[in-house]
Each structure stands twice: as structure tokens, then as C-alpha cells.
């Protein structure tokens, strides 16, 4: 029975989960809709040997042309590309990686949890490009504190303005010898390194950290398998009053009513719902300023010579760390603005493809470098540009008849130059640390593949150039909030989820207060 909820929350991942966590605890009655089923780890997973899988671990060919993260073990967790199509121009591929399960992508994320800084929030003040956020770091800091406590983020304080410290579970673990050598090489060049800052526990998801507290209050109900098609409005007031959704399995149509609608269906899905609803776009920028963070995977693969021979000395290998952004802070680079971070790790075995050999010779080389690898990934800031956008592709619909997105995103010279720089610096640091560089390159993966898609529903003070205000509230419809990564104005090179969660909690606090004072 449709009982008329206070707040309808669409999506149960980091954003929807964070909003529900705050709202339900404030006594607000919430209904959450999620397009996917609830996961049961006992029932839905089991150990298998790779040779017992039908494709020996290769996966069914062509099943996930745009999800390089998919393999035959985890193939069933990603959104099916045939049922959930989207389009892009052949010349500009976009890898949109989606999880449609209760808990969203937080069931599988890598758990890196980094704060943004005023280098991002005040980016235009710093280098003149783009738009400042309507908030400063100081506005979000208390919510970062809360999110870090919930996600139990481990880390070590470093006192860096470009990567503010958080409320960490102190990580005092000793670094391995190879990591110490790399850190020292960076320090000699004035480049800071930090320990990895990461949510602890194998599972650090909305399902075990955000939703249980909300459910416990009795104020949150969740409907799974509910694919939202559009948000509905009251024709008299123009305010949002609910949503149409379709049962994923039966295709049965439903409508639900609520006083307020909070969208947290993930960056591009929320924007798709708004575009399909024809709402919140008086500015004309809905769908625009799509960006993410570029990845250069294995920008450098190196070998620690002392670890050769297949049996590295104890304490030499293992562990990892982060080189936070160091470019364009106090000095200016000639070829690009903004910066990138490096994610480095020690103790892997370099892939066979890097060795120009085969047969027994290859086997010997691989045995020699077993566990002796030192690898680096670069994660770079992508500039938000109006022309990078999503729009509805009227010719294509998903399995529920909902029009699909067309995505248009390209990297340009600023990103290319930054990627080249990340390769040069990574090589230099490895060589300075005494490592042998086996391979290096600067080609980034296609846009989207970092799974850090951001923008398209950005916040701002000016309703003519932004969709949301500084509380993630639609400028056009005051009882409509969008709390996921689509609200970002710029993204830096820090993984975005901690910021998504902090922003969603801040928006939910504001919403609760507005509801209390009957502003909404």
C-alpha cells in the first residue's frame, strides 16, 4: 500500500545509503528504491576452481565489451550490457561500469578514501580554469569526519594541504624495504608520499555500514528490483511528488508518493532519470560537464633487483602507498594545469606480456621475477568541459523500455600531457630507488573505466549555470535533491566516494532541518 513517505530515496549505494543513514536517524520516514536485488553472500557466492568454469576464467566472449574489471568469477555482479544499453560514438568509446544490486558499487569498491582539498573546491581561484564549488573544504570537513568514522578509514596523518588528513584508524604498520626506498627517492625530489588511506574490512559497503543503522530505526524500508523510470511532479505546484518504477523481474509498473525525492542512483543514472523526467534543467547544463579521473594502469612496471631469484629477502617486498598530487601546487607546469596521484605497490609478479620471450626462456624469466615487481598506476584530474556530456538516445531503450543514455566524453591535451608527465616521474622515481624499469607507457584507459564518473548535474550558486545549489538541492524544484557524484564541480585526482558520502550526509542534514522547519 502506498502510504506516502516523507522521503523517497532512489539508489542504495554510497550516496543513497549515506542520505538514508542520516535521515532515518532523524526520525524521517524513508522509502528506498533500488533497481537491483539484495545480495546474500552465503547464497550468491561460492568457491570454484577456475577450470570448472565454462570458459576457464576467460569469461564468455563479448559479454562485457566495456567492463574490463569483469572476469568469469565476478561476471554476474555487473549490470548486463544488453539489458542496460547505452551508446557512444565509435571514435570516442566510453566504459560505463555499473552494479545493479542493493548496495551498488560499494559492494566491490577498492575502498581508497581520500578527501578533496581547497585546491579542488577553490580550483578557479588557484589557476583560473573552470568554476569554483559553492562550498569550501571547511564546509565539508565535519562530514568527512563522520564518513571516515563510519567507513573506518585507516591511514597516517601527513599534514599535506592538498590531501587533508582525516579521522583515521592509525596505520602504524612498518613499510617494506622497497616501499621505504621509493619513499626516500620521492623525498629527495621534494615529493611527499603517504600510506594508503582506505576503508577497513573486506566489506565496507552501504549494505553493512550505512543501511543497517537506518533500518534499525524503523524509518527505512527498501524495495529491491525497483527500476525507476521517472520522477513525477504535482502539476499544481511543480514540486516532486514521487516516482514511477518498474519491477525488474515482472515488468509490473508502480507509482510511489513522497514529500521529497532524493536521487542517489549513481552519477549518470540520476542524470538519466532527470532527463527522462524532463525536470531540473532550466539552466540547460543538466547532462553537461561530465568528467572522471583518468587512469594510466601500470604506468610503470619495475623489478626490485635484490628480490630477483624467486625468493625475495624477508621484509623487502610488499605493501604500497600513495604519491598525492604534487604538480601545480606552488609552481606552475608549462604543459598542463592541475595534477595527478600515483598509487604504488610492491610484491607482484610482472605480467608475461612484458617479456620479449616465450617457451622455457619465458618461464625462467618469470620465475626470476616472481614477487619482485613494483607497479604504479597514475590517476589524473580530468578537466570538466561543457562539451563532454550525456543525453538521451531516443533510439535505444533498456529492458524496461526506459530510454538509454548517449555518452560523449573525450580527453584532451591537458590530460595527455599530464599522463606523459606521470610516466616520466614514475620512471625517474623507480630508477632513483634502484629499481629496474621493465615497461612504461602513458596511455590512459577510455573515459569511464576509472569508475569515477562525475559531474552532469553540478552544484553552484548561479541557477543559470548549475543544476543544484550548495546543498545538492535542485535550483528549480526545492524538494528534489541529487546526492551522488553527478553534483561534483571538479574532481581532483582523489577517489571520489568519501566525498560523495560526506556531501550526501551534509545534504541530508540540511534537508532534515528544512523539513523540520516546514520549509519543505
Amino acid at each position, binding site marked *: 500500500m502506498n502510504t506516502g513517505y516523507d522521503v523517497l530515496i532512489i539508489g542504495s549505494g554510497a550516496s543513497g545509503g549515506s542520505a538514508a543513514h542520516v535521515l532515518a536517524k532523524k526520525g524521517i520516514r524513508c522509502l528506498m528504491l533500488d533497481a*537491483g*536485488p*539484495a*545480495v546474500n553472500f552465503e*547464497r*550468491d*557466492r*561460492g*568457491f*570454484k*576452481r*577456475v*577450470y*570448472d*568454469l565454462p*570458459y*576457464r*576464467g*576467460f569469461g*564468455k*566472449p*563479448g559479454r562485457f*565489451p566495456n567492463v574490463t574489471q569483469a572476469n568469469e*568469477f*565476478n*561476471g*554476474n*555482479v555487473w549490470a548486463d550490457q544488453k539489458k542496460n544499453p547505452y551508446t557512444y560514438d565509435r571514435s570516442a568509446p566510453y566504459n560505463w561500469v555499473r552494479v545493479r*544490486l542493493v548496495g551498488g558499487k560499494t559492494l566491490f569498491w577498492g575502498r581508497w578514501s581520500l578527501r578533496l582539498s581547497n585546491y579542488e573546491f577553490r580550483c578557479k581561484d588557484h589557476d583560473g580554469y573552470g568554476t569554483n564549488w559553492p562550498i569550501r573544504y571547511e564546509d565539508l570537513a565535519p562530514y568527512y569526519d563522520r564518513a571516515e568514522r563510519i567507513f573506518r578509514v585507516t591511514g597516517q596523518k601527513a599534514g599535506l594541504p592538498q590531501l587533508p588528513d582525516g579521522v583515521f584508524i592509525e596505520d602504524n604498520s612498518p613499510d617494506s624495504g622497497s616501499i621505504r626506498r621509493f619513499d626516500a627517492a620521492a623525498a629527495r625530489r621534494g615529493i611527499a608520499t603517504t600510506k594508503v588511506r582506505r576503508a577497513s574490512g573486506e566489506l565496507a559497503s552501504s549494505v553493512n555500514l550505512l543501511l543497517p543503522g537506518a533500518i534499525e530505526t524503523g524509518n527505512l524500508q527498501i524495495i529491491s*528490483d525497483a527500476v525507476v523510470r521517472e520522477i513525477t511532479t504535482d502539476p499544481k505546484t511543480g514540486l516532486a511528488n514521487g516516482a514511477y518504477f518498474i519491477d525488474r*523481474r515482472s515488468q509490473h509498473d508502480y507509482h510511489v508518493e513522497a514529500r521529497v525525492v532524493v536521487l542517489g542512483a549513481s552519477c549518470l543514472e540520476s542524470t538519466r532519470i532527470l532527463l527522462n523526467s524532463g525536470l531540473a534543467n532550466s539552466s540547460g547544463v543538466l547532462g553537461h560537464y561530465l568528467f572522471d579521473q583518468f587512469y594510466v594502469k601500470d604506468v610503470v612496471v619495475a623489478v626490485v633487483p635484490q628480490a630477483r631469484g624467486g625468493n625475495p629477502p624477508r621484509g623487502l617486498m610488499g605493501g604500497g602507498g600513495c604519491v598525492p598530487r604534487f604538480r601545480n601546487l606552488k609552481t606552475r607546469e608549462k604543459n598542463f594545469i592541475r595534477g595527478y596521484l600515483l598509487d604504488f605497490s610492491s610484491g607482484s609478479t610482472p605480467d*608475461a*606480456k*612484458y*617479456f*620479449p*620471450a*616465450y*617457451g*622455457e626462456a*619465458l*618461464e625462467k624469466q618469470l620465475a626470476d621475477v616472481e614477487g619482485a615487481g613494483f607497479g604504479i598506476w597514475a590517476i589524473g584530474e580530468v578537466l570538466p568541459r561543457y562539451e563532454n556530456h550525456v543525453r538521451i538516445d531516443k533510439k535505444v531503450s533498456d529492458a524496461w523500455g526506459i530510454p538509454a543514455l548517449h555518452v560523449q566524453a573525450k580527453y584532451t591535451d591537458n590530460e595527455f600531457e599530464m599522463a606523459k608527465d606521470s610516466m616520466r616521474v614514475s620512471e625517474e622515481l623507480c630508477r632513483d630507488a634502484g629499481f629496474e624499469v621493465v*615497461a612504461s*607507457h602513458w*596511455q590512459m584507459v577510455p573515459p569511464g573505466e576509472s569508475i569515477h564518473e562525475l559531474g552532469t548535474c553540478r552544484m553552484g550558486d548561479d541557477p543559470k549555470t548549475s543544476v543544484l545549489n550548495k546543498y545538492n538541492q535542485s535550483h528549480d524544484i526545492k524538494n528534489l535533491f541529487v546526492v551522488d557524484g553527478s553534483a561534483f564541480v571538479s574532481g581532483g585526482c582523489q577517489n571520489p566516494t568519501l566525498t560523495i558520502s560526506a556531501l550526501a550526509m551534509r545534504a541530508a542534514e540540511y534537508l532534515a532541518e528544512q523539513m523540520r522547519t516546514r520549509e519543505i
Partner: protein
Amino acid sequence: MKRRTAIRSILTLPAAMALPVPLPAQVAGPAPPPSNEMPDTPTVAADTHTDTVVKAFNADQFAALNKLSSILVPSLPDTPGGLDAKAGEFLDFLISQSPPDRVMLYNEGLDRLNQEARKRTGKPFGEITAEQARPILAPLHEPWTYEPSTDPFTCFLRAAKEDILKATRNSRQYISVVSRRNRRAGGMGIYWFPIND
């Protein structure tokens, strides 16, 4: 009474007078109810007990692929190679299900192996030695580049090297031998079943 006569006399006695013979169990008492527990019915894997039907490749191509498997991932005294792992059969199956560009890469690559071998030795690739194959496989001695090569044959050789190695390392044959030496090499992973479909 002689023993044989005695037995005969027993056999001809009326049933009621015969020595009591233990009855078969099922008629000894009331029949136990049939078990409702699902038994584990043992089955065996198709690829260890039968031959696969080659689909993607013609005989020459398949012979070339098998030879390539034996050269790129040879059997070593203590480690199964591509042939032991039936990497060729597996890749034939995989390629038969693959998108057209992948099928073309393999078809043309295997044909090229045969052409090159015939040109150099008068024999198809499947019949030449590893030593004779060396110059043909020279692109595999070129340093790695991130950008795919512009030469389709080099692309094929790189793809085949990766695929044959993976098909071998992930095979039952390889894992069962290697995991005896190293318990971590068990090829075990967490598999996600279809979720509430």
C-alpha cells in the same frame, strides 16, 4: 552318507524341511522408506574424458595452433605445457564463440604461420620444429609496447602468447600438478552465481 548325496538330498527335501537359509535382507522385515536425501551423483568433466569437436579452425590451422601451444608453453619435466592442457582445443572453442574481429585475428594469424612455414621449409607450421619456427616467431622477441602493433601478425602472436599461457595455467591439468608443489596455486576463486534472476 557321502557329502555329494547329502547335498542332493537337502536340495530335494520339501521346502519346509530344508535347512534354514538366511533370507535376503529386503524380505527380512518391513522395507525401509526410500531415502529422500539427494545423493551426490558423481560425474566427470567432458574435457578429461572426451574429445572436443574442432569448430573454429580447419585442420591445418588447428595443427598450427597446437604446434604454437607446444612451442610457446612447452611441457617441462615437472610442469604441463600447452599441449597437455589442451590449450588448442580450448582456444578453438573460445574463438568459435568470439566476436568477428577476434575470429579473423586467429584465422589469419594461423594461416600466416602455415604460409611462412611452407615458404621456409615446404611444410605446414604443424610439422616444423621449434628451431625452424624461431624466425617466424621473431615478433615475440620485440620489446613490449602498450600500443597494439600495426602488423596484424604481431598482434596475433601477442594475443596467442597471452591466451595459450592463460589457457594452460587455468587448466585442470596444470593446476592439479602445480598445486601439489605449491598449495597457493590452486586456481580457486570466489564465484558469483546469477543473483536472484
